[in-house]
C-alpha cells in the first residue's frame, strides 16, 4: 500500500489531490476521537445483525461464530448500535481518559 496520505509533505501532494488507490481511506483511522466503545453481551445477543445494519461507519462485523464486534480503528462511539439493538445486549463503555 502506498504512503499514508496523511504523512505526505506538501511537495508530494498528487496533482489535484486525486486519490487513485482503491480503499486508501482505510489508512485513515478515524476512531481515534471515540469517547465510548460498544460492548456486546453475547449471552443476550441473537445475532440478528441490526447493529451492523445501522452502523453509519459500516464498521460492525461478525466473527467466525456469527457474533458482532466493532472495528475500533473506525468506530466513533456514536452508540446507534446500542440504541437500535432489539435485545439491549450492547452497552457503551467509557474510554479511559
Amino acid at each position, binding site marked *: 500500500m502506498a504512503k499514508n496520505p496523511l504523512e505526505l509533505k*506538501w511537495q508530494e*501532494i498528487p*496533482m*489535484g*489531490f*486525486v*486519490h*487513485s488507490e482503491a480503499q486508501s481511506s482505510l489508512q485513515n483511522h478515524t476512531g481515534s476521537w471515540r469517547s465510548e466503545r460498544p460492548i456486546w453481551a453475547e449471552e443476550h445477543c441473537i445475532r440478528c445483525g441490526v447493529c451492523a445494519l445501522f452502523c453509519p461507519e459500516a464498521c460492525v462485523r461478525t466473527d467466525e461464530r456469527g457474533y458482532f464486534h466493532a472495528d475500533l480503528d473506525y468506530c466513533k462511539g456514536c452508540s446507534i448500535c446500542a440504541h437500535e439493538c432489539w435485545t439491549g445486549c450492547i452497552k457503551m463503555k467509557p474510554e479511559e481518559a
Partner: protein
Amino acid sequence: MGKRKGVESSIALADSAAMCRIEAISAYPITPQTHIVEHLSEWVNDGHLEAEFVPVESEHSAISAAMGMSAVGARTFTATSSQGLALMHEILFIVPAMRLPIVMAVANRSLSGPISIWNDHSDIMAERDIGWVQIFAENGQECFDLIPACFRISEDKRVHLPSILNFDGFVVSHMIEPIEYWTQEQFDAYLPPYDPQIKLDVRKPSAMGVVGIPEIYYEARRMQQEVLMQSTPVVLEAFAELEKTVGRKYNLVETYKADDADVLLFIVGSLAETAMTAVDNLRAQGKKVGLVRPRLWRPFPTQELLAAFGNVPVVGVCDRAMAFGMEHHPMAQEIRTLFYDAPNRPQICEFMIGLGGRDVTIGDMENILNRLLDVKNGAPVGPVDYVGVRK
C-alpha cells in the same frame, strides 16, 4: 499578415475558442458576455464544431458543469460576467484545487448595487484570490489571440490550472474592430490536443474532490500556491510561441513610453488605450509621461513590474473597483505591496476611474498624468482621487 475582418470582439473571441477545438461548453447568458456563448451555440448547431454544448440554469451550474466535463478530460470553455461570476464564487476556488484546466472568458462588469450592467472591474477584483491564472486583454485582437494562449498555459503539464481572460464589458465585448484571424492550421500548430494528466476514467478509477482533513488540507493548499507561482515561465513560453505563430508580441507587463518617463501611470484594461492617447498628447508638449499595464495579473508579475517601473519617483495607480472600508483600493493595495520592499519607493497617487461604466475621457487621463507631474514637482500626494465624481 492574416486576413483582417470587421467583427464584434465577443464574436471573435467565440470564434477563437471554437478554433481551439473546444470539446465542451457550459453556457448561461449574462450581459455583456451573452454573445460569446450564443455564437458558440451556432458553431455547434451548424455542425462546424463537435462539442458538448450544455445550457444550464445558472452560473453556479455553468462552472459546476464545466468542472465535470473537464474532469473527464474534455477541453472545456465557459464565459461569464459580473453577478454571474459572483454566483460562481464558491466553485471558482475548487477548480484550481482539482487542477482542472478550464478556460473562462470574463467580460468585466460592475457588481450590483445599484443595479448596473456597465463596465468596471468590481467583478474580477472580488475574485482575485481564487487561484486561477488571470490575464487581461485590452481590445478585440488581444481577446482573439489570448484565448488559445490561455488553453496552452492551462493545459501545460507543469500548470494544469484554469485560467480567466479578462476584458472590458461593452467597451471591448461589443466593439466591432478589425481583427486578424488566425488560420485553423495556426491554431492547430500552436495548441496541441489536450493531454489530461488527471481524469475520471472507469478503466482506472480514482476519486476527485476528496475531503482534506486538518492533517492534509494545509499541504494541499501549500502545493496549489507553489504551482500557480511557478506557472510564470509557462506563460512566457506561450507568449513567445504566439509571437512565432502570428507575429504579435505579448509581455507579462506591457509599457507605453515608459523608458525615459518622469512619472508612470499603472492602468489595467481598455482604458489603457485612452491613456495612451493622453500620453501622446502630453509628450507632444514635452512632458515625459508613460504607462505600465499588467497583462498577466495572476500569478502577480512582481519582478517584471519592478523592472517596468524602474526608479521612477512618482507612480499613479488607477482602480476600477472599490475596496469598501479601506483607504486604498484593490490595485493600489497591490502596487503599494509591490514597492514595500523596494529600495527606492516612489510616491503613489491613487485614482478611482470609470466606475459602473462612467466615461473616462482623454482629458481625464491628461489631468491624471498632469497631477502626477505636479507631485513630482512637490505637490502633496493627497488621498484617493475619485475622478469625475460629482461633488
